[in-house]
């Protein structure tokens, strides 16, 4: 192979070649390792905008926390429950945040196993989002039970009262599924961060902070042996995480599918919940990553090609979700079961028509715009659409939870439900809680994976003729 000039980046020549090894993940404006370190580490410097956003998030969180204390003091009656609708905004929001947490593992683990290049620059953001979303989701069952100090009853520890959780209950399955998911996704995030923490350590001048980063990076020295173990561990964790993507939201779906309420007991729920979760998670990834790439000047890392590919995945999951809606409607009609038919009619054209149509328009109609390549590459449109997807997916859970309970078998039980200001406050507070953690994260640790970006940036040729190999 002909040798190039030593210090000249090989990127241009590589791009002009017809056969580019990593053609689908090219970053034409990223030229060398130093640029990667400089620009991504540069995003960690706090800014006024960041302080402002963090301030808003903390205020929302404090508002939510204050209202929760209010609810604990005055009782669960302050939530908008209207028997038999005893699952309301809290369960809806729980499912919503668990769903958001799904895309992180899909992008970081499954797309890693498939070697899908477009994940490289967005997966860190998605992984962090996963951990904080699951942390947020975990709050809501605790809020929902009204007496949060009794939450430990769900944990299957041996105790002197010989009372054990009801293992036949999907609610207990939830505890296991979500704790497992939180453990694995946190581990996955942390393991992936180790080389990047080491990069930050090497650039750090403050000795205390440098020492902290050294501890957090486990003394990473960038050796061949460490990389070998790292890649093995990462691959193993990716393979281990993959079934969790399916299991967690399937188990959440069992909370509903196992019950015999109209609209709930249906076999498509497990994969449909998983697809919906991935869809909503990708929506939230867009909501987060598009401002980040703009305000952190990362447009040449998180390129339009990456957003384009992620938008295709978003479109695909939207269509899977749409197909599931149709299957539900069709089987309800075909079965001839009047209760199911009435339920679905009531859902779409009756009492809950407005919620159902928000869901259908946001989740099935608006995403069709992503058939247009121009709109897939239009960040303003993608950001706006992502907000509608978040809205639509919250309403999807509303449509699943509330209409079934408010329109069960006995007509005398039929009722209405409206969230109270307490419900809404806790929902808003959950966004504050989520974004508070996320905003803190992105100023402490790199939001784009430095080490993986370096893998696709052509190295400089370090040595003279006869010494092959670049800097690694």
């Amino acid at each position, binding site marked *: 192979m002909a040798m190039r000039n030593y210090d000249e980046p090989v990127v241009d020549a590589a791009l002009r070649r017809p056969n*580019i090894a990593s053609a689908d993940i090219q970053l034409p404006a990223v030229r060398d390792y130093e640029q990667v370190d400089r620009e991504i580490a540069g995003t960690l410097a706090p800014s006024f905008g960041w302080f402002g956003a963090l301030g808003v998030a903390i205020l929302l969180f404090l508002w939510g926390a204050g209202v929760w204390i209010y609810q604990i003091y005055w009782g669960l009656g302050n939530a908008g429950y209207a028997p038999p609708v005893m699952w309301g905004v809290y369960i809806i929001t729980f499912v919503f945040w668990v769903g958001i947490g799904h895309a992180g593992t899909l992008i970081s683990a499954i797309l890693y196993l498939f070697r899908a290049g477009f994940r490289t620059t967005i997966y860190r953001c998605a992984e962090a989002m996963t951990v904080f979303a699951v942390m947020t989701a975990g709050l809501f069952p605790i809020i929902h039970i009204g007496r949060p100090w009794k939450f430990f009853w769900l944990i299957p520890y041996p105790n002197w009262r010989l009372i054990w959780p009801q293992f036949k209950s999907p609610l207990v399955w939830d505890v296991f599924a979500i704790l497992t998911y939180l453990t694995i996704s946190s581990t996955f995030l942390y393991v992936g961060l180790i080389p990047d923490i080491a990069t930050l350590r090497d650039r750090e001048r403050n000795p205390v902070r440098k020492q902290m980063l050294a501890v957090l990076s486990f003394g990473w020295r960038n050796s061949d042996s460490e990389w070998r173990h790292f890649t093995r561990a990462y691959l193993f964790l990716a393979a281990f995480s993959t079934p969790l993507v399916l299991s967690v939201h*399937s188990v959440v779906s069992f909370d509903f599918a196992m019950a015999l309420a109209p609209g709930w007991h249906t076999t*498509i729920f*497990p994969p449909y919940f998983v697809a919906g979760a991935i869809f909503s998670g990708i929506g939230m990834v867009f909501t987060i990553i598009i401002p980040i790439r703009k305000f952190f000047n990362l447009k040449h890392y998180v390129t339009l090609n990456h957003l384009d590919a992620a938008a295709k995945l978003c479109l695909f999951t939207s269509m899977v979700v749409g197909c599931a809606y149709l*299957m539900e409607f069709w089987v309800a009609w075909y079965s001839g079961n009047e209760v199911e038919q009435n339920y679905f009619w009531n859902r779409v054209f009756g009492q809950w028509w407005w919620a159902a149509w928000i869901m259908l328009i946001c989740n099935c109609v608006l995403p069709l715009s992503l058939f247009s390549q121009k709109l897939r*590459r239009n960040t303003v449109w993608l950001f706006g659409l992502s907000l509608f997807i978040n809205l639509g997916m919250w309403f999807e859970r509303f449509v699943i939870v509330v209409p079934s309970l408010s329109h069960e078998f006995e007509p005398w039980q039929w009722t209405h439900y409206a969230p109270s200001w307490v419900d809404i406050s806790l929902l808003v507070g959950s966004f504050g809680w989520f974004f508070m953690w996320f905003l803190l994260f992105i100023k402490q640790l790199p939001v784009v994976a430095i080490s993986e970006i370096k893998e696709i940036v052509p190295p400089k040729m370090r040595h003279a003729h006869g010494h092959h190999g670049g800097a690694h």
Partner: protein
Amino acid sequence: MSAHSVYVPTREEVAQIAERPVSGLLARISLALGAIGLIAFVVGLFVSPDRAWRALLYNWLFFAGLSSAGVMFVASQRITTARWSRSTIRFVEGYVAFMPIAWVLLALMVTVGRRHIFPWAIEAPTVREKAIWLDPTFFTARTLVTFGLLTALQIWYIWTSVRLDVGILNEWGTSWGKGFRERMRRGFGDERRELHSAHSLQGKLAVWMALLFGYGWCSLAFDLSMTLDLHFQSTLYGWWFFMGALLCVLTSMAVLARWWRNQLAIPHIITDVNLHDIGKLAFALTCFWGYLTFGQYLVIWYGNLGEETHFMRLRLIGAWLPATLVMVFLVFVFPFFGLMGKKPKIWSAIMVTISIGSLIGMWLCRYLEVYPSLYGPTTLLPFGLWEIAVTLGVLGLWGVCYFAFMNTFPRLRVMLMTSPYRDEVQVPVNARTMEPIPAHE
């Protein structure tokens, strides 16, 4: 899939490989099986028409599902701009050849054989909605139009793929296919332009195909399989059905890739890494199929509603139980534990054994979808001469179609393996200018 360096053969080398003579034994065996099956089926129409038609139905579900899912898998490679499968994907493109035959068989089943197959064709359903949905005219038109559109779209897609190779190679192939090849060469221009145009067109076709495949097979699975039991309905049934067909594609691909590798003597082109990739996908789909199966079963078991559980219970009692257990073992248990790790996915003896086992298991699954609903509880498995003969016949017919395709068109994707422009389409490009769209603002 695997990011690895690959041996890049020259065009002359690939062209020469694609023309190598291969053993005609399997093609002849297929022809013989097809003939035997046809004779047996015709005899069966007079001796035991119900069994003959019903055996044809479940075999149709298996082989038509396999063929259609095969082309869908090819299209999925375009949607994801996959490169790992370039050396092996033509072996799956050949599945399309069975699609027109499958349409004819479907037409026969839903017209001539309807009363022998579908209980509701004799006695109309009492539930009003079911009577509307299963109205004979509506049913026949729906199934034929759905499968017909899918067939047309899939043939069109494969045509655009094969045309690229026929256009750059010398005349080769069966004499009866010469007309097709000449038509493909008509208007074939500059290689780079053709590659970009085909890529662009395939992108659109693949998306439409995915839509039609998903909705179409849901409808077909409901109509041709689920409605055999008029009291059962499952929203997951369609997805579960076509994911099983996609699993068959990967396991059959694992077998065929090895067969063609040996026949064409190309271990340097279809490497162990390629076989490993196919094995990984087969393993992943095995897990996914197991997940769907268990998910469907668990919801029904836990719900414990008679209108649902009877479908599962029937398959878990009497003569059906051993068949169900064998099916679960072959499609899930055996591949799941057998394919863990890298070596079993590469070692041909293990991978081929597991793959063939999985295919047999999925064929058994189709049998269990159809027969218990039609024959009810029984202590004697209705499986005998007619089922065996019709199965061998449809297998033979499938083989005849497949080998006819592979002997008529280039056996490798020559252009996508050798063109200097093949990776230009990995990033979003303007199909008109053939230049990449700017990666960022």
